[in-house]
């Protein structure tokens, strides 16, 4: 389905009004709006001659990814402890673009990820480093994205389980590494890699986790990194997605979470900010866009329980406006995507801006995607909870089911093993309704 672009002249009335009281926040906000306005003004003229605009630099983005998968400049030294992330960002971006790397290349990727695997379980950011939850998450998602048995076998669920126990706190929170910091990322990464390697959300490993996460919800509605911290887009995604994966939303205020989440979409720029009164940033296209999707899943799940439904068959943020920000303001014509106009491209922003584009285009599995500009601008769907190919999630679940590692005594108060075979992981809304009140 063709999306309608907004009227770029009309929406100028939505630009920031500082009410004649300049502060640092308003000055920076207005500066960014002016940068965005330049991009919008230009496209408004060009699209009057060519109605297939805005253009999507698909080939250029693919070339950027192919180059990066082999070779990165010295500037990436600061990510030397996050190399499994570099792999994940590239593979997930390639998935969105529907680009397949050759089997030989993917074989090399598996080989490299195995080198990052630690003897004590879990993955490190690079060879001969210590295991850490974030690179473990990135490595497991990468292996799932490759989808082959060889890749899935390399996950080593027993090792994952051992590692998760070593970073679990008594209250259900997770440290990022042994003796490392505690925050919501930890809980999200733990439940994610746990589920993809066949550990049930009812496992004792996750006892108390949902309650700990709920404590991170703030008076604004979003989640902070830990209790009392400011509501933040990345942590809010982690919190809500973790609760969905844990099948436990009883403890969270969905109404204020939804309000806070939809408020993060910028009324002029169309993209998302990550916190109240901060600037728009391409990467929040995924964190916030997907968060809205996840909240809608949770609301629907909840309404099944109180017998109280309202139809939400549309994604609650402005899907066209987000695509406009991404396509008009966040692309480098030589490949790669960015935070905001004037910034250099990098793999992190390429991955999460493309994933956000996918969230904006593909919501309802029974409806056509909504695509701005040329129909060729369409990208493949992504799983809103894991941010990998939905099919990859299904394959990982299936593989884990064939190779179980769990025993009955691992589970909390369960007489029978309620496993998590989502029928259709693409349609996360139907996920595990039977388990929801465990």
């Amino acid at each position, binding site marked *: 389905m063709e*999306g309608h672009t907004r009227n770029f002249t009309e*929406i100028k009335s*939505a630009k920031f009004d500082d*009410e004649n*009281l300049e*502060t*640092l*926040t308003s000055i920076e906000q207005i500066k960014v709006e002016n940068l965005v306005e330049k991009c919008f003004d230009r496209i408004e003229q060009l699209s009057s001659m060519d109605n297939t605009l805005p253009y999507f630099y698909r080939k250029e983005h693919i070339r950027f990814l192919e180059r990066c*998968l*082999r*070779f*990165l*400049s*010295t500037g990436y*030294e*600061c*990510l*030397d*402890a996050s*190399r499994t992330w570099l792999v994940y960002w*590239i593979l997930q971006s390639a998935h969105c673009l529907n680009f397949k790397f050759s089997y030989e290349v993917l074989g*090399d*990727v598996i*080989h*490299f990820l195995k*080198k990052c695997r630690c003897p004590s379980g879990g993955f490190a*950011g*690079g*060879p*001969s480093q*210590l295991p850490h939850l974030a690179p473990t998450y990135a490595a497991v998602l990468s292996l799932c994205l490759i989808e082959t048995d060889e890749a899935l076998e390399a996950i080593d669920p027993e090792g994952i389980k051992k590692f998760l126990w070593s970073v679990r706190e008594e209250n259900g929170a997770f440290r*990022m*590494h042994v*003796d*490392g*910091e505690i925050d919501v990322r930890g809980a999200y990464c733990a439940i994610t890699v746990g589920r993809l390697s066949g550990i049930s959300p009812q496992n004792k490993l996750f006892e108390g986790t949902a309650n700990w996460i709920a404590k991170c919800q*703030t*008076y604004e509605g979003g989640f902070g990194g830990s209790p*009392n*911290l*400011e509501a933040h887009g990345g942590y809010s995604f982690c919190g809500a997605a973790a609760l969905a994966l844990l099948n436990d939303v009883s403890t969270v205020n969905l109404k*204020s979470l*939804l309000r806070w989440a*939809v*408020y993060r979409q*910028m*009324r002029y720029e169309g993209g998302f900010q990550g*916190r*109240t*009164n901060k600037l728009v940033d391409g990467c929040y296209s995924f964190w916030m866009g997907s968060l809205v999707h996840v909240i809608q899943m949770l609301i629907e799940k909840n309404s099944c329980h109180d017998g109280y*439904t309202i*139809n*939400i*068959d*549309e994604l*609650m*943020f*402005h899907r066209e*406006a987000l695509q406009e920000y991404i396509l008009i303001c966040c692309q480098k014509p030589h490949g790669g995507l960015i935070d905001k106009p004037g910034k250099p491209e990098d793999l992190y922003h390429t991955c999460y801006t493309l994933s956000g584009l996918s969230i904006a285009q593909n919501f309802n599995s029974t409806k056509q995607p*909504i695509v701005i500009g040329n129909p060729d601008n369409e990208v493949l769907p992504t799983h809103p909870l894991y941010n990998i190919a939905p099919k990859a999630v299904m394959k990982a679940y299936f593989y884990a089911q064939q190779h179980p590692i769990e025993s009955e005594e691992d589970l909390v108060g369960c007489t029978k093993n309620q496993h998590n075979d989502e029928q259709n992981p693409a349609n996360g809304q139907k996920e595990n309704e039977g388990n929801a009140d465990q």
Partner: protein
Amino acid sequence: MSDSSDEEFNEGYVMYRHRREWSDVHPIKQNDGKNPIVAIAYSERFLDVYDYFRAILATQEKSERALELTNDALKLNAANYTVWQYRREIIKALKKDLYEELNYIADVIEDNPKNYQVWHHRRVIVEWLNDPSEELLLTEKILDLDAKNYHAWQHRQWAIETFSLYDNELAYIDKLLSADVRNNSAWNQRFFILKHMGLTLETVQREIHYAINRIRLVKNNESSWNYLKGLLESGDFQISQFPDVEAFTEDLYNSGNRAPYLLAFLVDMYIEKTLHIYETNSYDDPEIFARKVYEICDMLANHYDTIRYKYWKYISQKFRTEKERAKVGPNNDDTPANEEATNSEEQKLNGEAN
């Protein structure tokens, strides 16, 4: 610090492989395999330092020279958590002066204020020393450069909470909010302090006035509105308990102000009023408030907050359902009104762009 480190690195700097005092160590190359993936074009110096770091990690050497080596490794990549972890082990083994380490990490934080590992290291050292006397000052220094630095706020909250340093925090927050009333991190900090003090009716009353005075300054400021709303919700109070708030927002509206946050606040207030009338079986006419809810939701969807048009339509429909439910009473589970609301065509959100 950056000046001296540049000097150290550029002029008198000698590669580890050329240092006589390191000649007994066999450097270990990174094992990336035959066909490397995401291979970073490391500088000569980076390779040299990390080859030696891998060597001491393998032999678990904990010595002065190993500690110095971690300095160089962290200068090249302050995000390497393995190096930080090993550095802490060395410090413990050598029983180093922790105050010296505190100075060192303050310098590193100033160079890398948005890095998880450096702040975590700071926290561990402060815990070992059990001395938080520098923490407020350090975080203020960092917040001077960027008043919304998330890591700095996290560290500050941790110090305040762990060592009970609440006393002068409200004054500091006041200073920040006078400089930038739109600084949401400062508003969040205020809520954190208030929650600690206890959200009694008296405190909430006072804070409501604090928020309202700042809304008068700039109406179009989401931070102050969120704070106001948060106070009312977290204290489990009803808006109707605070006639000042009602008067203030309605006056603002009647004076012609259409700030979207004001309109959203009014929507919440009128929803609460309508449902309250039904729940208490009061004789007031709920439809007066209900009409206002629909009207303002429409205004938001069509004029003042068009980016969220779908959200405001959803709020409007949800209210309709809730109202029907409240009408029937709480004990009636399967209300026909419910089904009607779900199936009716006009209840569906349609995806048309505005």
